C-alpha cells in the first residue's frame, strides 16, 4: 500500500501529514512534487493544507491547474481514495472534484481553534471506521473555510449523503456560534457521490497525537485509518 502526499508551491502541511502516515501509522508514503505526472503506483492521494500560491486570487484556484491534478482526477475516477485537507479541500473544489465553494469566513478573519465534528456519514473512504454521529476533536486554521453551495445543489448533497462532517458544540448539537466560519448547515467536510473523494477544512494530521490535543485525543487517526481500511477491503 502506497500513499502519495502532493506538494505544491506554498503547501505547508505536507510534512505533518507525511509524518503521521509514515511514523505514527507506518504506512509507505511519498511526498510528490506537483509537476509529477504519474501517480500510477499510488493507492491513494492526499492534498495537504497550506497556502498554495500564497492563496492569491482564491485559495486553491492556481493549484487546481497544476500538472498533478490530472493524475488526481484519474485516481478519483478510478475510485481510489482522494483526501483534500483545508487548502487541499479548496483545490478539489476549484478542480471540480467536489461541489460548492469555499468562501471567506464570516468574521473576515483567520481563525485557529479546536472544534468538535459530528460524523454524519460513516460510509466514505475516510470515515468508515467511525460510528455514525460520533464526535471527533480536530483543529481548524483558515481564512476561507466557509462552505457554500446553491440551494438546488444543497438538496442534491443531502439526498446523496455527501455531507460527511459538521461542526457541533460540547453537547453534540449544531449551533451558529460554534461554527468557526459560518458555513452553510455547519458543514466542515463533504464527499463526492461515490464516497471516495473527501474534502474537510479541519486538520486530521494535527489531531493525531494526544500530547498535542487539548483533550488528549487523537481523533485525526480515524480519518487515516478509515482510508487504510477502505484500501484493505478494495
Amino acid at each position, binding site marked *: 500500500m502506497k500513499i502519495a502526499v502532493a506538494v505544491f*508551491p506554498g503547501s505547508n502541511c505536507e510534512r505533518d501529514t507525511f509524518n503521521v502516515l509514515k511514523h505514527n501509522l507506518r504506512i509507505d508514503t511519498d511526498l510528490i512534487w506537483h509537476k509529477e505526472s504519474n501517480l500510477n503506483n499510488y493507492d491513494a492521494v492526499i492534498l495537504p493544507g497550506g497556502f498554495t500560491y500564497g*492563496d492569491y486570487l482564491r485559495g486553491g484556484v492556481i493549484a487546481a491547474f497544476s500538472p498533478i491534478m490530472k493524475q488526481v482526477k484519474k485516481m478519483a475516477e478510478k475510485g481510489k481514495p482522494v483526501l483534500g485537507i483545508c487548502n487541499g479541500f479548496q483545490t478539489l473544489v476549484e478542480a471540480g472534484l467536489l461541489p460548492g465553494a469555499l468562501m471567506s469566513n464570516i468574521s473576515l478573519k*483567520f481563525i*485557529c481553534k479546536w472544534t468538535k465534528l459530528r460524523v454524519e456519514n460513516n460510509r466514505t473512504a475516510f470515515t468508515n471506521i467511525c460510528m455514525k454521529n460520533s464526535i471527533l476533536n480536530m483543529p481548524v486554521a483558515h481564512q476561507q473555510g466557509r462552505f457554500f453551495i446553491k440551494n438546488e445543489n444543497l438538496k442534491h448533497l443531502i439526498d446523496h449523503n455527501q455531507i460527511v462532517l459538521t461542526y457541533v458544540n460540547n453537547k453534540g448539537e449544531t449551533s451558529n456560534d460554534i461554527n468557526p466560519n459560518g458555513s452553510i448547515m455547519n458543514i466542515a467536510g463533504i464527499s463526492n457521490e461515490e464516497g471516495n473523494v473527501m474534502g474537510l477544512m479541519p*486538520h486530521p494530521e494535527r489531531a493525531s497525537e494526544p500530547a498535542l490535543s487539548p483533550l488528549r485525543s487523537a481523533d485525526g487517526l480515524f480519518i487515516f485509518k478509515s482510508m487504510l481500511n477502505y484500501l484493505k477491503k478494495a
Partner: protein
Amino acid sequence: MITNPDQQLGLTKKEKTTLRKRLDREPNALEWAMVDAQWSEHCSYKSSKPVLSQLPTKAKHVLLGPGYDAGVVDVGDGYIVTFHIESHNHPSAIDPYGGSATGIGGVVRDILSLGTRPIALLDSLHFGDIKTSSNSRWLFKNVVKGIADYGNCIGVPTVGGEVGFDKCFEKNILVDVVCVGLGKKEDLVLGEAKYSGDTVILMGGSTGRDGIHGVTFASKVLSDESESERSAVQIPNPFLKKLIIEATLEAVNTGYVRGLKDLGGGGLTCGISEIAEKGKNGIDIEISKIPLREDNMTPIETLISESQERMLFVIKQGHEKDIQKIFDKYELSYAKIGIVKNNDKVTIKDGKIIIASLPVETIVNAPIINRSVKIPNYLNKLRKLEPPNEPTDFTKILSKLLSSLTLASKRWVYKQYDHEVGIKTVVKPGQSGAAVLKLDNGKFLAIKVDGNPKHCYLDPYNGAAGGLAEASRNIISVGGQPLAMVDHCQFGDPNNSEVFWTFSEAVHGMADYCKALNLPCVGGKVSFYNEDTGTNTAIKPSPIVSVIGLIDKLSHIRTMELKEHGDIIIELGITKPEMGGSEYYEYIHNFTGGSVPKVNFITESKMQILTLELIKKGLVNSVNDCSKGGLAIALVEMSILGEKGINIDLNNVISECHRIDDVLFSESHSRMIISTNKNHVNKILDLARNYDVPCSIIGTVKNKDISINMNKKEIISLTSSDISKVWSDVIPKCMGEVN
C-alpha cells in the same frame, strides 16, 4: 558613470573625516553610500557596542553567540536550536500591515540563513491606548493582521507573545518578533565567505528601489515628513518567502553551501561586507550581473536597496549547478554575482572597471561613538511621590484591573495566528506562561517573550533585570530550564544623554542578571530613535527579552490552569510593597511613581531551582508565576483557565506590606503560585525549607467562586465565569466586535 542622487547621508562630520583618513583618499559617491549604510546605527551598533559588551555570551551549550544572524544553542542528540529577535517599529508605524509582515520576513530569514528550519514565531507588540485612540486601534488591527497573514502563509506557527499598552507608544509603536529554528548540528551554515574561489549567488526577489535609506530611516526620528518617504515601505510577499525557505533548506542539504546570508538592513552592501569579514576574505562583485526590477537604477541604488526576500549563497566552487537545479525547481530567480577573493577588499566592478574598492575592515568597523550619560531629572521626583489612597471595594478594583488592556485576554490576537502548523505545539497560546514545542529528539522547548517598559521607565536597571526574571520564571513555570536569551533594546534618541543613561542602566541590569543566573545572551538588537519630534517624547525604555528553555520529558510539562477541586494553593516567595510601574498603580490610579520591584539574584535563583525540582518530582499540579498585576491576577488567571474557584487567606501570604492593595497587586519578583494535591504539601514545605525559599499555604481550590479573605473578612468575591467573561471581552469590545 556613477550618479549622485540627493544623498541624505547619515554620516557625521567626524565619521566622514575618519573614512577619508582610513582610505587615505576621497571616497567616490558609491563608496560614500556604501559606508553610510554600513555605519548607520542600525547596521553597525556604533553607539551600543561598548555597552552591550557587558552581556555574558558563553556557555557549554552555546555554539554561536551575538554577532551572527542568530544565536545557536545545542539541545542534545545532534540537534541545534537557532534563536533571534527583530523589529520593524518605524515601518509599522506608517504601514502597520506591510511593516509588521516584513518584520516577520526579516527574522525568519535570519534563522534560515544558518541553515535551520524556522519552527516558531512569537511577537511582542506595544501600542498606545486603543480604548481612546482610533489611530492606535488602526495600528493594532493591522499589525496583528500583517503578522497573521505572513506567518500563516509561510507555515510557521506563531505560538506566543505579549501585547502592552501605554500612551508613550501612541506614535512610536513597537513591533518585536522572535523566531526559533531547529536543525542538525551538521547542517549549520555560517554567514561567511571562507574559501577563496567560491561563487557568490544572489537568489530570491529582484532588486528594486524599495527601502532605499531604510536603515537610515530607522536611525532617524519619525517626523511628519515620514509619511511621504514612500521608498521606505516594503511590500510583503510571503509566498515567495515560503519558496525561498524550502529551496534554501534543500540547498543546504547538498552540503555545497559554504556561506549563507540574508539581505536585510543596508542591502547588498552590508550582506557582502559582513560575509567577507567573517570569512576573513575579500569579495569581488560584478554589478551588471545583479538582476534589477526597475529601470535606470544607479549602482548606489543597487547596492543599498533593501528589496525583500533576497539571500546570498556562497557555493563551493564547481558545484553551482547542483544548487541552481534546486532554485529552478522552485522557479526562483538567481544570478552569479561574484567570487570570493583571497584579499581584504570589497570590490565592486562594472565590467572591467572598478567602481568601488573598500577594505573590509574599514566598512565593517564603524568608529565607536562614546555617548554621554546623565541621570534623568524626573526619576528622583517620581520615586518619592506619595502613594495613592487605599481603596475600599477590592472586588470592584480587581474587576476593573482585569479589564486593563495589558492584562486582558489576548485571544482576539492569537486566534488569528495558526499556532498548530508543524504539529509541534504542545502548550498553546493563552494556555500558560510560556509556549512549549516538541523537538525532534524527544525533548521539548519552552519559549517566552517579555518586557516591562513601565518598570523600566522608573528604574531601568531593575526593570530590565526584572524582565529577564519574569521571562525565566515563565519558562520555569512550564517545566523548562532556561538556556539562553536574546534581547532587543528599544530606546529614544541616543544623542540625548538621559536616554543613553537609561539604555546603559538597562543593559547593566540584564548583564548582572545573566551573570548571576548563568543565562547567556546569544543575540539581540538595538533600536534607537523611537521618538516623536512633534512632542519631543521618547518611548519608555523598552528592553524586550526572549528566553528559551529545555524540558527533558513530556511528564515534566506543567500548565497554569487549576486542576482539582480540593487542591492546596501554595505561594513561594515574599511580597514586598514595590508598587512603582505596577499595572495597579498605572491603570487603576493613573499614577506613575514609587519604587519598582527589585531583583535579588540569589533569591530568584533559589526559587527557580526549587520550582523546577518540585515539578520534576511530580509534586505540583499547576504553576503560575507572579508578575504583572501581582498575586491577585496570578490567582485569577489560574482560576479562569481551570474554570475553578479559589478560597484565599491573605493573612498567610508572606509579606512585608502594610496595605491590602500592596499585598494583592505588588509585582515583586521571585514568587510562584503552585497548586498541589494535599498529600504533597509537607514534602513541598520541607524542600522549600532546604532551599531556604519562603513558602506558605495560602488557600484551596474550590468550585466556582473566587473568594479572597483578610482578617477573617471576605474582601473579594467574584464568580469565575463572570470574571472570565469580563476578561475575555475587553479587547473584542474595544475593536467593536463580539467575542
